[in-house]
């Protein structure tokens, strides 16, 4: 099985405080991999370091067999990595359509196109519409993003992430703040839009995790406690000890 | 001692004097930024007002010392009025609005000065007590400059004492690091802002008074000081008092020797220095806060 992402002995300190240490991780093509752990374990930092927002203090990151350690964010993104944010990060004053359009412009490599009018670009428009329809956001296409409901903004966040048609999708707590029904819908939606892609998802909601994930990695205090299938993780005593949260049985969820 | 060393020493003392003067103004500038996150462009205008008020008071009351007593509080009160009346209003509209407001205020104050006092530089006669020259290391050095040096050092000392030893000084230092925290601990933050802003203005005004007999009061002194303050705060770091002190002394010496060595291009060097610092280390040589 092809390794999409390989993290080798990754560490990250902030002014002497070690947030991640000795992280080794392999993500295989097509898998849905969840990263869980207590608050403050370093999950978001791991995401931020892999996606290029932070430079690692030690270690290497390989994406599609290329050493992307220290690469600028846009270069990593263009290689095929796309992520969402835990705190909603959209273009607030632009409409939902324009938000998605921004992603499509980048995907079609038109960011620096100076000799055509954006409004006249049928190809970009059509693809933006397609993504919007894929996420069932059609009726909101002209609403300024800041005026969408929280659930709508979460969906937009997801839309922006998948609109790039990336190889690897990284979602950082995509269901944060959603109620039970919204979360159930979100799981379906995530499954739908990540069809055929590789997914890494950071989550607190165990129902989401055990519904979506093929494999799970547990992080605690900046290091990996365990990696394995959901069943393996469920049985792992160290995880149980560290994580003090009720993990649903195979029969539920 | 050889005459060359004498000249250098003289320039060095002069640079020290000017640097301390700059610090009196720059300290308020950087403190207000560190505390309130506002880059108060109008701050340099307080310096200018101080000098002009000193002119008027000295002229009409024939007593230079009175301007010491009257001007700093007057300028401080003006500062407080500006902070409470205008700045707070603009604060609601965001940093940009605050910033631009201080910009507009600066220009208005410069214009008001020209309207009231005209565009011609006005000499201010210093105190009779220090009007002579004193024999220093073989040359005669104006006594007033020594007074400037001594007085600035004294003010600096008082500042340090206030910041380190008094409760309000502690609050100020804490608030510069983390104003939210100080607020959460129950301190009246708006009041603190008002005090610091007013004190900074008063200090700048005081600096203006001190500088007046030496520099005269001239209409572009606000702009000159503004540019100097920018350079100081960029080099020393926004919000850092230590940085401001060291940078002020650096700039003081640089100007002093720059005028000596390359009189035509002294101003160029200052901006070159600022540009270099901004390019290499955007947060200044000492500051952390942005």
């Amino acid at each position, binding site marked *: 099985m092809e390794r999409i992402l390989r993290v080798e002995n990754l560490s990250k300190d902030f002014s002497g405080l070690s947030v991640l240490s000795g992280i080794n991780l392999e993500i295989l093509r097509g898998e849905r991999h969840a990263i869980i752990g207590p608050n403050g374990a370093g999950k978001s930092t791991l995401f931020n370091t892999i*996606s290029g927002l932070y430079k690692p203090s030690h270690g290497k990151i390989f994406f599609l067999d290329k050493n992307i350690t220290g690469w600028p964010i846009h270069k990593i993104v263009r290689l095929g990595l796309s992520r969402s944010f835990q705190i909603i990060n959209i273009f607030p*004053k632009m409409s939902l359509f324009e938000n998605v359009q921004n992603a499509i412009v980048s995907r079609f490599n038109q960011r620096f196109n100076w000799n055509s009018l954006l409004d006249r670009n049928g190809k970009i428009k059509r693809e933006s519409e397609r993504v919007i329809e894929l996420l069932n956001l059609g009726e909101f296409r002209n609403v300024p993003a800041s005026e969408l409901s929280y659930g709508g903004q979460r969906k937009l966040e997801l839309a922006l992430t998948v609109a790039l048609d990336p190889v690897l999708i990284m979602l950082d707590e995509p269901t944060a703040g959603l109620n039970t029904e919204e979360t159930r819908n979100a799981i379906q939606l995530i499954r739908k839009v990540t069809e055929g892609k590789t997914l890494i998802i950071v989550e607190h909601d165990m129902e989401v995790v055990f519904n979506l994930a093929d494999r799970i990695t547990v992080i605690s205090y900046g290091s990996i406690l365990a990696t394995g299938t959901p069943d393996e993780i469920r049985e792992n005593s160290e995880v149980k000890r560290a994580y003090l949260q009720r993990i649903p049985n195979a029969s539920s969820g | 001692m050889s005459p060359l060393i004498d000249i250098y020493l003289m320039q060095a003392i002069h640079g020290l004097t000017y640097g301390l003067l700059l610090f009196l103004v720059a300290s308020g500038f950087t403190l207000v930024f560190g505390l309130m996150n506002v880059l108060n462009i109008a701050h340099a205008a307080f310096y200018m007002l101080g000098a002009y008020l000193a002119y008027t008071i000295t002229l009409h009351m024939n007593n230079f010392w009175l301007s010491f007593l009257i001007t700093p509080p007057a300028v401080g009160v003006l500062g407080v009025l500006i902070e409470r009346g205008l700045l707070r209003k603009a604060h609601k509209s965001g940093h940009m609005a605050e910033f631009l407001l201080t910009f507009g205020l600066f220009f208005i104050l410069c214009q008001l000065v020209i309207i009231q006092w005209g565009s011609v530089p006005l000499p201010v006669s210093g105190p009779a007590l220090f009007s002579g020259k004193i024999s220093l290391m073989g040359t005669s050095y104006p006594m007033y400059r020594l007074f400037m040096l001594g007085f600035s050092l004294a003010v600096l000392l008082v500042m340090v004492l206030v910041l380190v030893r008094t409760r309000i000084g502690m609050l100020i230092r804490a608030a510069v690091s983390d104003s939210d925290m100080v607020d959460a601990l129950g301190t009246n933050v708006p009041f603190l802002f008002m005090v610091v802003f007013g004190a900074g203005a008063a200090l700048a005004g005081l600096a203006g008074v001190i500088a007046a007999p030496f520099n005269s009061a001239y209409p572009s002194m606000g702009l000159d000081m503004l540019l100097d303050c920018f350079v100081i705060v960029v080099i020393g770091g926004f919000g850092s008092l230590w940085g401001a002190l060291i940078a002020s002394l650096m700039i003081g010496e640089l100007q002093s020797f720059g005028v000596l060595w390359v009189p035509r291009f002294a101003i160029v060097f200052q901006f070159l220095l*600022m540009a270099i610092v901004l390019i290499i280390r955007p947060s200044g040589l000492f500051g952390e806060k942005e």
Partner: protein
Amino acid sequence: MISYWNWPKVLGVGIGILLLFFPKMLSETHINLSIEIFIFALYAVSFNLLWGYGGMLPFGHGALFGVGAYTAGLIFNHIPHMHLLLTLLMAALSGLVSAMVIGFFCVRLKGAYFALLSLAFQMFLFALAWKWRDVTRGDDGMGIVRPSLHLPGLGSISMMNINNLYYFTLIIIVLGILACYLFLRTPLGNSVVCMRENELRASFLGYRPFMTKFTVFSFSGIFAAIAGALFVLFTEFMGTNSIDINMSMAAIFMVLIGGAGHFLGPVLGAAFYTAFQDWISSLTKHWWLIMGIFFIVVILYLQGGLISLLQSERIRFWLGGQNKSANGKNTESRKPV
């Protein structure tokens, strides 16, 4: 009643026609004023590319205006037979190159640092212009003679004739403003706005912050320089007034008062600034004071600038009609700032 979706277009056409007929209708003084407004309109629009659309506020934009001014001035003086359009092109190029150099250093910085570093560059150029008397004649400046415009088929058009100068300036300015407008409607222009709206998100969509901001900064320099060149042509004088801090301040004033939130806001601001300055200077020599007070009033009470008055609900109500744009699309969302 004119329905709402129609009135900007009607007004636009109306103003366009008026502009064409101004020389016939107005006195020479007013024609001069109009030319000055045109020049500053382009300058202000170029500035708003950076501020309103790009989210960057430079304090030293006057540097680019001044570079164009001095390039044109020196050419007018030393190479008087150079074709006028070629001179403008040289000025534009000088603006581009200067902006690229300045932008390379400034664009990586944000906020106050960006503003101040651009100011540092400007003050450096100002000091250069002031001290390098051999070339620039320092603060005395240099008078220039307006060259004629040679066009194939039309012969030699003298720029000493104020009507000719009026139309020439009008055409160049309209072309310049149009270029800026079209720029903003390209995907590149959209990238610029993305940077302002959410640089982090844009990076994670594959946009390149430095390159994008560098590009718009350089582009803006072209038009500031062209405005500067026309300024020298118009005033027949090349001096430090075209590169000093007041010129940078003027840009900020114009865009703030006119309104950074609409493409034409700066044009309105330029018109106001220039006309107001002209009017107030005849009453009192302290027009900067009045402008300053105005500036403060706008900051405190009219954040959107004068143009926001035109967009207000009340005006729409007065003109009647629905609050819908021509093609039904929500055009509010891609406003700057």
